C-alpha cells in the first residue's frame, strides 16, 4: 500500500530525513517511535504533502502511485490521512461546513454524487459516537476553543468521517489523560480493518497498549535504525533509546 524508498527531505537546506525505507501493507499497524528531533513529525508532514519540506531524494508510492508529485488534497482524496499533532484552530469555519466540503470533494474525486444534507448529518451522528463526542459540533468552528483532548478526538472523528486507506497519526497521544487516550485508541481500533493501514507516531509505549502494532520502528537522526515486532516497544520503555543510539553514533 505504501512504499517509501530512500526518502530524504530538508527544510531550509537542513536535511532532516536521511534515507527512510518503509513498507506498509493493508491491514497492518506500524508504530514509529524515537527520541525528540529524530524526524518523526517531518516524515508525517512529508507524506501528507506539506510544502515547507523539500524532498531531495527517494520516492514514495501509495497504492502504486508516486505521491510526491501530488498536492496535499489529491493525496487525501486517494485515501491518505494525517492526524495532526497540533490541530489548527480555524475560527469562522464551522465543523459541519468543513466536513461537508471535505467529504463532498473526496466524493467528487471518486465520481460519486454529493451526500444529501440528511445523509450527511446521519453520518456525523454515527461517527461522533465512535470517539464519544457528545457536544454539538454543528455550530462550533474547527478546533476553536477545543481542549487538548477534544482536538485529538476531533482528529479521529475526521478520520472516521473520511475513512482513509492509510492513516498517519502524529503523536495522537500527546496531551491526553488516561480516559481520553482510551477513547481515542478505541476509536482507532474500531476503524481498523483488513483493507486499511495505520502508522502511529508516538513517544510512549502507553498508546501501544491500546493500539497494538504489528511492527515497531525506531527513527533516529532521520533514519530507521531498528525495526521489530511489538515487543520492541516494551524494550524501549524499559531501556530507553540510548542503547540503540550507541549502535549509530
Amino acid at each position, binding site marked *: 500500500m505504501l512504499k517509501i524508498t530512500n526518502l530524504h527531505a530538508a527544510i531550509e537546506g537542513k536535511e532532516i530525513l536521511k534515507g527512510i525505507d518503509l513498507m506498509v501493507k493493508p491491514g497492518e499497524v506500524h508504530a514509529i517511535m524515537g527520541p525528540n528531533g529524530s524526524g518523526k513529525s517531518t516524515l508525517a508532514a512529508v507524506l501528507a504533502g506539506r510544502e515547507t519540506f523539500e524532498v531531495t531524494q527517494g520516492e514514495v508510492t501509495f497504492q502504486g502511485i508516486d505521491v510526491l508529485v501530488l498536492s*496535499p*488534497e489529491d493525496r487525501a482524496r486517494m485515501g491518505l490521512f494525517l492526524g*495532526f499533532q497540533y490541530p*489548527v484552530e480555524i475560527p*469562522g469555519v464551522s465543523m459541519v461546513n468543513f466536513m461537508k*466540503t471535505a467529504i463532498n470533494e473526496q466524493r467528487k474525486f471518486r465520481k460519486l454524487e454529493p451526500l444529501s444534507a440528511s445523509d450527511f448529518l446521519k453520518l456525523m451522528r454515527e461517527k461522533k459516537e465512535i470517539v464519544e463526542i457528545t457536544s454539538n459540533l454543528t455550530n462550533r468552528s474547527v478546533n476553536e476553543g477545543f481542549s487538548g483532548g477534544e482536538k485529538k478526538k476531533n482528529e479521529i472523528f475526521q478520520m472516521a468521517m473520511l475513512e482513509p486507506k492509510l492513516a498517519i497519526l502524529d503523536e495522537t497521544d500527546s496531551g491526553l489523560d488516561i480516559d481520553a487516550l482510551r477513547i481515542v485508541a478505541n476509536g482507532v481500533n474500531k476503524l481498523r480493518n483488513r483493507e486499511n493501514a495505520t502508522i502511529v507516531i508516538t513517544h510512549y509505549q502507553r498508546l501501544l497498549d491500546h493500539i497494538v502494532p504489528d511492527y515497531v520502528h525506531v527513527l533516529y537522526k532521520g533514519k530507521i535504525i531498528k525495526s521489530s515486532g511489538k515487543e520492541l516497544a516494551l524494550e524501549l520503555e524499559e531501556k530507553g533509546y540510548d542503547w540503540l543510539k550507541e549502535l549509530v553514533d
Partner: protein
Amino acid sequence: MTTIELQEELTNLYNDRSETIKKESSELINSFRNKAFEDFQRLGIPTRKNEQYKYTDLMNYLAGDYTYEIAPAKLSVKLEELFKCDIPELDTHIVLVLNGFYYNQNSFSALPEGIIISSLAEASLKYPEIVNKHYGQYADTSLDSLAALNTLFAQDGIFIYIPKNCILKRPIQIINIGYSHKNLRVTSRNLIIADKNSTASILVCDHTLCKQSFITNSLTELFLDEGSRIDYVKTQNENGNSSQISNTFIQQKENSVFTTNSITLHGGLIRNNIFAKLDGEGAQNNSYGLFFGDDNQHIANFTHIHHAKPHCTSDQLFKGILDGNSTGAFNGKILVDKFAVKTLAYQKNNNILLSKTARVNTKPQLEIYNDDVKCSHGATVGQLDNDSLFYLRSRGIGYKEAMHLLMYAFANEVISKISLGPLQERMIDLVDRRLKGELFHCENCKIHK
C-alpha cells in the same frame, strides 16, 4: 483637472442652479446653504495633503462629464417594477430613492402610530418642529468639505422619525437606486431621529441599475435620544464606474445604542465617513464594516468616534479583502474628551491582500485627554494562514475551495454581527459568491462592471 478647477466647476454649477434649487426647497434647508457655500470655498476639494484623505485620491474619481438633476427623473416604468428586492423572508417597510430623490409610492402598511417615513423636502415643510431641531445640527460643514458640498446642494432624501417608546419590529429598508441615461452627480440628504427609548432597524441598499456612472455624495444625520437603539446596515453594490461618498453623522444621548454595519460588495470608489459623537453617559457605538475590492476599486472607511461624556463604549471592527489592483484604506480615530472618564473604546482593522498589486493603508489614531480610559486598537495586513490552509487541504479540500473557506471565515466575523437574520443569510450568500468570483449581486440587480 485640478482640485481647484473641480471646485470652480462645482461652484459654477451651484451658482447656475441655486435659484431653482432654492425654489424647490424649504426655507430651513435653504438657510444652511450660505454657510455651506463659505465652508466649501474655504475647504475646497480634499487633496491627499489633507490628513483625512491621505489615502484617497478623490480627483481620480470625482472629475468628469456629469449631469446634475435638480428634479426627480421621470421614469416610463414604475421603479418598484424595475427593481424588486429579492431577499427571501425579509419583510420590510420599503422606501425607494431614485438618484437621490425620494420616490413617491403608496402609503406604508401597518406602520405603528407616530412613525414618520417621508421625503425630507416634504418633512421640512410638514414637521418643522422636529426637522428644525435636528437638520444640519450634527453634520459640521466647517470640518468636512464633502459635508459642506452636500449641504450646499441638498434638496431631498429620506426623513424618518421613530416616536418615544416605539419599538418598530419590521425594519425600514431604504433602497437607493441609480438609474439614468446620462452620467449623473447625485446628492442625497437624510435625517433619522429616534426619540427616547425607541428601537428600529434600518437597512440601506445601494444599487446602480445601469452602466452609467454615478457620483453620489450622500449625507445622513442620525439622532438617538436617551435609551434608543438603532441598527443601521448598509450594503453597497454599485457598478465599477461609480463613486460614492457616504457621510454618516451620529449624535447619541444617554444609554443609546447605535450599531452600523457597512458591507461594501462593489463599486468604483467607496468612501464611508462615520462621525459619531457620544454625547450622553452610557451611550454605545458599534461601527463595523466589511469590504471587498478588485480591479481598480478604492474602498476607504474613515471613522471619527468622539467620546464626549463618561461611561461610553465604542467598538470598531473593519475587515477587507483586496485583490487585483484595488486599494483600501482604514483611518479610524478615537477622540476621548477630558471629562469622558470610564471610556471603553476598541478598534480593530484586519486586511487580506490576495494579489501582489493590491494595497491597503491602515491608520489608527487615538487622541485621549484623560487617564481613566480603556482603549485598544490593532491593525493587520496579511495573507491567509498557511497552517490553516494546509489543514483544510490535508482533508481533501482543494486549494481554491480552502482559500474560499478561509476568506469566508475571515469575512464572517463581521457578517455575524448583522442582527437581521434573513439579511445575514443573504450577505453570507453574496459574500460566498463574491469570493468564488461568481455573481455578487442580488438576482434582480443588473450590475455592470
